[in-house]
């Protein structure tokens, strides 16, 4: 049996549609989320991440109606993030069948939520996402509010803090790399994963299976998420849902 680190397609929601961003900007419409989830289902992906990229910005709670329709369609473990700010929302979303929730803005603004949620539902179901951008001086900074508001936190420091609060996993998203298909920020991934004991999911920049392998072996990530790589094909960035098969992942050294 192979050792199988998780490879996670990361799907972004805007209103009722699926989109893909570049550096958290210019969302391009990709189609119906329900159909996309169904296709990933049939491709037997291990896990799926669904992130609503406008909920927090629009100061609204998660679109529960859409989420329940997505949950009904999926057989694989899924996590949801975007606009979660109360314990009640965590409860409802986990109740729908999502395995984990992803919390970003509230993890900084209301750290007690992480503590309470992990106390109630277990650390394994609470993921904190850390969106990272380099500032003017080349220093990594954690961002909140859909990547629009800088915090004073260094990502590794914030990761350590939420680990102590009870987060079970870190979803580490590089804003600078997002949608660029230029490879992961391996330095960032390594820095954060070496500062915490909980699993770190790397996201942002993947273009192919070799990048997944680099994030795993050089970046010391525990799991690799990617958007563009699983929804775009070729030089015209044609929208086409794809997922590497076992053979390709073995060959690239992701499964060992």
């Amino acid at each position, binding site marked *: 049996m192979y050792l199988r680190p998780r490879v996670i397609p990361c799907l972004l929601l805007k209103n009722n549609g699926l989109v893909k961003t570049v550096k958290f900007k210019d969302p391009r419409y990709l189609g119906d989320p329900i159909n996309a989830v169904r296709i990933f289902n049939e491709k037997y992906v291990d896990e799926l991440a669904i992130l609503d990229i406008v909920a927090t910005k629009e100061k609204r709670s998660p679109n529960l109606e859409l989420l329940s329709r997505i949950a009904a369609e999926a057989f694989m473990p899924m996590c949801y993030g975007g606009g979660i700010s109360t314990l009640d929302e965590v409860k409802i979303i986990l109740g729908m069948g999502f395995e984990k929730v992803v919390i970003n803005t509230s993890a900084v603004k209301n750290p007690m939520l992480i503590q309470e949620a992990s106390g109630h539902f277990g650390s394994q179901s609470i993921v904190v996402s850390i969106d990272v951008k380099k500032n003017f001086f080349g220093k990594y900074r954690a961002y909140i509010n859909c990547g629009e508001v800088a915090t004073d936190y260094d990502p590794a420091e914030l990761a350590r803090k939420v680990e102590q609060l009870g987060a079970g996993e870190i979803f580490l998203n590089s804003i600078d790399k997002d949608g660029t298909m230029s490879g992961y920020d391996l330095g960032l991934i390594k820095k954060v994963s070496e500062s915490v004991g909980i699993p770190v999911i790397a996201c942002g920049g993947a273009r192919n299976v070799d990048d997944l392998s680099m994030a795993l072996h050089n970046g010391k990530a525990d799991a690799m998420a990617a958007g563009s790589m699983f929804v775009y094909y070729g030089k015209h960035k*044609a*929208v086409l849902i794809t997922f590497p098969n076992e053979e390709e992942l073995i060959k690239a050294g992701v499964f060992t």
Partner: protein
Amino acid sequence: MKEYQVCNRCIMDTSDSEITFDEYGVCNHCRNFDENIRPRWFPNEQGQQMLLSIVEKIKQENKNNDYDCIIGLSGGVDSSFLAYKAVQMGLRLLAVHVDAGWNSEIAVRNIENICKKLNIDLYTHVVDWEEVAEVQRAFLLSGVANQDTPQDHAFFAGLYNYAVKNNVKYVLSGLNFATEGILPASWGYMAMDLKQVEGIYDRFGRKPLKTFPKVSLFKYLVYYPYIKGMKVIAPLNYMPYDKDEAIKIMAKEFSWQYYGGKHFESRFTKFFQAYYLPAKFGYDKRRAHLSSLIVSGQLTRQEALIEIEKELYPIEQLQEDKEYVLKKLDLTTQEFDEIMKSPNKTFRDYPSNHYLLEKLRTIRGLLKK
């Protein structure tokens, strides 16, 4: 009520309300195939020569362009095999896929395999799903048989509009007489008739359409071909095209996979052809398809009669697909049952350019003589 009758040559029957039979019990579709289609069909040496010169002309005209032609790729048998053949003939293709929100996993995997193995560039036009759903919902509420119109119109409009916008003159089409030579007019309606799309949408749609791909008959029949120089070529009519053989070749060459049933690469089309049409109208599209294969010499009538007896839609699968389709189109089971029970409508019950098209056909017929 007409007495039930099946054609002695193909297996078309009186489920086509407009079918007629001659003194030998042979239907009008068979006659139409012999008289109007066979003369335009070249599955032989002559076709090969004709195609060769067309391809040479395309290459010559496009030697300074990035692509020789555009091909619409759905992941289905016809378009996939066409892509394979076109690459073999040395054409530099840009594949255009119009995604209307119903792709199956097999369809997207086929497209990926074709493009990767044959080294074809791909462009995807993703149609706003909420608009597609609204148009399809409107069509279902209208009770017409031609439920494939919204998707087909979006596919062709998306393809043609893209070709003209990007100045690619040649569009390769997977249409072919070998598998599509027989299709009763009463079972469907021309998807290119925008007046029908908009006429039905005006009555049953709920919000304005902003981005749904449209092409008017004027653009399609006059402006695009005569002013913009767009030419639609159907190469499969210039070669022997045997579907089973094509599937075997493609499975071997690029792991192409069959999805069971003509046009079942779209989840909606499957539900529409295997349930809505037979249950509401008594039309079994397999009958036309199998009859096409008989007259084109790919299947014996005996084989077709055995094939048509096979179960159209296993009940569990129907239930699952029905639930999925209704949920996606925002229709309740009650609303859908109501549609199924309501009187059947035809395209003639709504605005269309049918009259104009018939006139054009007559004029063209007269000009040919």
